[in-house]
């Protein structure tokens, strides 16, 4: 990625120069659909200049959640700041990738474009929030594959937190992932084995909210690709193994050197809108198997300085302003939409000057109903369907998404939930087949 981002023509010239110098043969024009799945159109290197000018189009009707029942050419508008040479060469040729916004043919932002949605939210969020810096802790599992390449849920190791096992394939793979990310100018602050057997974590350094969302798209792609090279299956699935910790995506916000009151307002905004933003930050039926009272997953709208299972944590710090950590999201989310609803929740907390109550000490799993009622603590939705109902009720979160994305996302997720609901699961056979 270009280390010094320049606007307009200068940035485009620099990309073209880099592409020429590095002999880029193909460029992947990447974008995400409403569910956050990365899509791309490959163009030859000589077409890059035309692409940078916004002259590459695609059929928006073929992408889930974009436009329905009609065929419409939509424009890919590459963001020069995201141009990166891919650190692998499948056939010896050099490939690059650039993330794109999606525009309508008349040049206006497409309201179904998640990346443009985050940009809009940041622009409207006010000075303090639009300058927010964000960092991520991304968790994933590395599993063995069968001989035919089919993934399993069999872990590569039996390690736990911070274990060091130099001969372990998982450790080698994680190191290769970090190398690849650093080669793409994504700053990794640390990487380590996580709690679950075969579970790993990569921590990304703080940057702007848009860049952070871009980075998660890249991280997901790089982790999958490098694991594949090692004949390993990598998954960000929120809860791949019942008996092990789930994969979370902890999002850190730094509001900088603001008045302490502003930070409290931001925390209150996050707590207040957590039920509403859960469907976006935890978008699969599987997400809700992670959000249970185990493995330090958050289940209540509680904030704390130290509690490991609080929804929002503000860890004590010896240097710099305190960070606000949101611990409920998982990496199956659309990072642009997740960041948009989190940022909007913070902005709304500041606008309304909400306050979050006192910080909680201890384990949140033991809170009585009376205690929760007195302190205005609510339970996070326990299923995707419940989360969608909370989303329907939250006009702030819906406003951040915009009508198009809200309805398209909701329709897609209700359909997903209904598909899940109709499946007879193995647990049901085990519990009922002999009993009834």
């Amino acid at each position, binding site marked *: 990625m270009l280390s010094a981002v320049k606007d307009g023509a200068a940035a485009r010239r620099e990309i073209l120069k880099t592409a020429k110098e590095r002999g880029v043969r193909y460029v992947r024009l990447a974008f995400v659909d409403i569910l956050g799945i990365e899509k791309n159109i490959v163009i030859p290197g000589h077409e890059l200049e035309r692409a940078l000018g916004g002259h590459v189009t695609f059929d928006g009707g073929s992408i889930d959640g974009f436009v329905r029942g009609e065929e419409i050419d939509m424009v890919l508008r590459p963001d020069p700041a995201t141009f990166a040479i891919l650190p692998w060469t499948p056939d010896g040729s050099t490939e690059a990738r650039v993330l794109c916004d999606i525009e309508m043919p008349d040049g206006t932002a497409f309201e179904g474009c998640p990346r443009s949605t985050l940009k809009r939210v940041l622009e409207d969020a006010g000075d303090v929030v639009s300058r927010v810096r964000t960092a991520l802790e991304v968790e994933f599992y590395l599993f063995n594959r069968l001989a035919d390449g089919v993934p399993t849920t069999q872990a590569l190791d039996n390690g736990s937190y911070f274990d060091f096992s130099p001969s372990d394939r998982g450790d080698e793979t994680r190191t290769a992932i970090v190398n690849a990310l650093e080669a793409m100018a994504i700053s990794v602050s640390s990487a380590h084995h996580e709690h679950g057997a075969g579970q790993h974590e990569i921590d990304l350094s703080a940057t702007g909210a848009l860049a952070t969302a871009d980075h998660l798209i890249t991280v997901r792609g790089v982790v999958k690709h490098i694991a594949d090279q090692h004949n390993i299956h990598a998954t960000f699935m929120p809860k791949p193994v019942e008996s092990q910790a789930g994969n979370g995506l902890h999002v850190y916000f730094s509001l900088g050197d603001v*008045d*302490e*009151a502003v930070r409290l307002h931001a925390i209150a905004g996050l707590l207040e809108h957590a039920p509403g933003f859960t469907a976006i930050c935890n978008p699969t039926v599987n997400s809700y198997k992670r959000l249970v009272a185990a493995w330090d997953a958050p289940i209540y709208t509680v904030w704390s300085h130290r509690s490991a299972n609080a929804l929002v944590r503000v860890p004590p710090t010896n240097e710099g302003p305190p960070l606000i950590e949101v611990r409920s999201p998982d990496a199956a989310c659309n990072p642009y939409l997740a960041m948009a609803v989190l940022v909007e929740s913070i902005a709304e907390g500041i606008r309304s000057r909400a*306050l*979050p*109550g*006192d910080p909680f000490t201890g384990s949140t799993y033991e809170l009585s109903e009376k205690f929760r*009622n*007195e302190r*205005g603590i609510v339970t996070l939705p326990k299923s995707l369907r419940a989360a969608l109902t909370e989303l329907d009720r939250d006009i702030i979160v819906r406003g951040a998404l915009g009508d198009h994305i809200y309805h398209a996302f909701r329709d897609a997720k209700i359909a997903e939930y209904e598909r899940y609901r109709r499946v007879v699961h193995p647990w049901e056979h085990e519990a009922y087949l002999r009993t009834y």
Partner: protein
Amino acid sequence: MLAFAEALARIAAGGGGPQALAGHLASVLDAAVLIEDAEWRHLALAGTGDRSVPPSVRELLPRDISDASDGVGLSAPADARARAFPIRAGEARLGWLSIFPATGNLDGKHGLIRLTAASVAVELSRDNGGSKGRRRSFWDRLLARAYDDPIEAREDATARGIVLAPGYVAVAIEGEGLDEATASQKNAEIRRVCLDTLGSRTGDVVVIERGGGFLFLVPAPHEVDAQNARTAATLIPRGITRAGIDVKIVGGVGQHAEMLRVAQSVDEAREALTIARRMFGGARVMPHDDLGVYPLLYRGGGNRAEWEAFANRVLEPLRGYDEKHQTELVRTLRLFFDVGQNIKVAAASLNVHRHTVFYRLRQIAEIGGLDLDSPHDQLTLRAAIAIDALGG
């Protein structure tokens, strides 16, 4: 005398209130002036300088105060020259104006004092008229603990157009060092910032202006509302600074109280304000909850049960944690103090590494919501440990 009366009239016309009147009298007499209402609520204090002034003259008045129009002497520990003058409106006594001279005595100055008391009486009487006065009289009755029955209180409130919350948190705020020329304007700005900061999602904040200071009753149906009211109150000084108002304020926050017991929260807020001013140097708003041992010390000590209740409040969270997690936080704290807060010696006594002592002290601070580097919190913890030990 004429110039003095004209000055009082100017202050009253400018909306200065009892605090400004007290300030003027204090500067003319070179004396501390304390004004209290008939329920012994603090209305104004001025001209204290370095002088020690009792929080109330309630216990210092002679038994027979039937003829006190020319003031009555106060008993020790007040200075023998100190006198209290009744504030009257007709036959009703609205409060007391007490003078503590810095130099000389009050001979020949009773006229000035009585004129000031009369002006204060006019201010207090004016506050009780009209529809605002009717609402005000409800709150006065509630704060005077005149209601025993919540239904009666609610009916009375409804008749006056007041919607009562199930609970309240009281916040007392005063500007410090206001001069009479600008007191009125600055008080208006203080009031605006306070209301802006305390603004409640759960109902209207009640404002009672009295004695140059403000009393805010913040609706708090649930504990979280009370927590937020406390937090918001502590943010008021920053709001004053941010608004560019050149005044220092001091304040106190009472505990969360049911509607009928709001007077208790008010008493605590006022007590917290006084302690914030005297122990913490003012310019801050202190929640009563955070004052540790000071309320007991301020009241001149309590009985054994009160001290034990205080020690239990402080130590109970640590004991609960110890019991649940099989830790030794209370023992560590006791030993830490026993060895003069020497980590190395404490570690040796406990037979643990000194990092373990550091870790436990951090836990103690977090669980107890205390700062072990603060001398105030150290005093609270030391007192609690000592009371616990003395209690056997």
